[in-house]
């Protein structure tokens, strides 16, 4: 039983770490803001619950477990919301997604209009 728990937790943690790094690299390397939102938002939404699940599987049954569950729910609720709201605010704020095939990051210079 403990072995199963350990292995499941390890798998969760590894998957979470992988997604986490993927998100970070995407955040750094993507060419314009909207693809960055995509990279950061999507991976984060999955990475955080995975990591927290992995953590939960390692803990014994206590109040702390409930707290982790609350953190999980909280992150799960706020993170996609914040990402969506950010993307929408940016769109309203006047930035356009980069649709042409330009490779440089010219498309996302600050538009202060």
């Amino acid at each position, binding site marked *: 039983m403990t072995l199963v728990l350990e292995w499941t937790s390890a798998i969760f943690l590894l998957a979470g770490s992988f997604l986490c790094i993927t998100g970070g690299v995407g955040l750094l390397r993507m060419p314009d803001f909207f693809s960055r939102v995509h990279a950061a938002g999507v991976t984060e939404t999955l990475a955080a619950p995975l990591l927290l699940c992995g953590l939960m599987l390692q803990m014994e049954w206590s109040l702390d477990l409930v707290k982790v569950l609350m953190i999980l729910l*909280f992150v799960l*609720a*706020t993170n996609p*919301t914040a990402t*969506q*709201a950010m993307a*929408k*605010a940016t769109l*309203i*704020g006047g930035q356009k997604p980069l649709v042409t095939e330009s490779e440089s990051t010219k498309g996302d210079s600050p538009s202060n209009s």
Partner: protein
Amino acid sequence: MLIAIAAIRMRDLFGVVILFGVYSLLTAVLFMDLDAVDVAFTEAAVGAGVTTVLLLSSLRLTRRWEAPPRHNPFFSLLVVGVTGAALVYATLDAPLLGDPSAPVHKHVAPHYLQEAAGEVGMPNIVTAVLASYRGYDTFGETLVVFTAGLAVLLLLGFGESGESRIETSAIHDQVVLKVVVKLLIPLILLYALYVQFHGDFGAGGGFQAGVIFATGFILYDMVFGVENARAVMPAAWLPRLAALGVLIYGGVGVYSMLAGKPFLDYSALSADPVHGQHLGVLLVELGVGITVFSIVLSIFYALSGRRRQS
């Protein structure tokens, strides 16, 4: 450290503020690592949350871009360098990190650590020292917060209550955000109450709980608009609430004085001294929480309710 450098170099004040928030998060993690849970808690709630919000709302009222520097920075660099060198030289004599024989650990701290659980009857020694042993200090600090809030209100007022404000901002169209926030706010307020009354056992206490409670209202204000927030918590109540908090704190002190004990000696509150201490700490923390909550919220109202004058 790097963040600090970047924050200095950046001329866009908005970026400075965001980096300052990140910097404060890192500071809090450092506090966690140095075993200062309560301090990390406060720093996270205050530094990363409230300070950022306040700085942003005052940036809205002033302008965003900084003028290019006109002085030669050489002289100030010189001053800073000399002072820094002197300080580094001074640290060579300082006790090493974690050294148990450092003079700090020799004075009153052992007494607190050994006796607090028996004398005050709560496991969280920080709360015990804060509210009981150093009750005078904390009373003074609550008064300082109160006075600062009054000063802000005198300088700015609450602003007009926003009848003529045009609410065309993008947040007011976002349905998803509104629904989620509506669900979250009760959770935040509940959590603040937990922090308030669980402060005897874990990290937390009046200061943090007040800030978190205010954060919940600030969130409501930001997402649902000023009018709605002021309908829930009218601005006129806030100074009265703040005064009420200070009065609770002072009232506990005066009560113990009337009972024939020194000012703020909580053992007068009940027949059993330990129980009295516990009760006193709870009441005092409640007073601190109410004061901090109403002052933070009224500062936010004052800064966000004011219209930009060009």
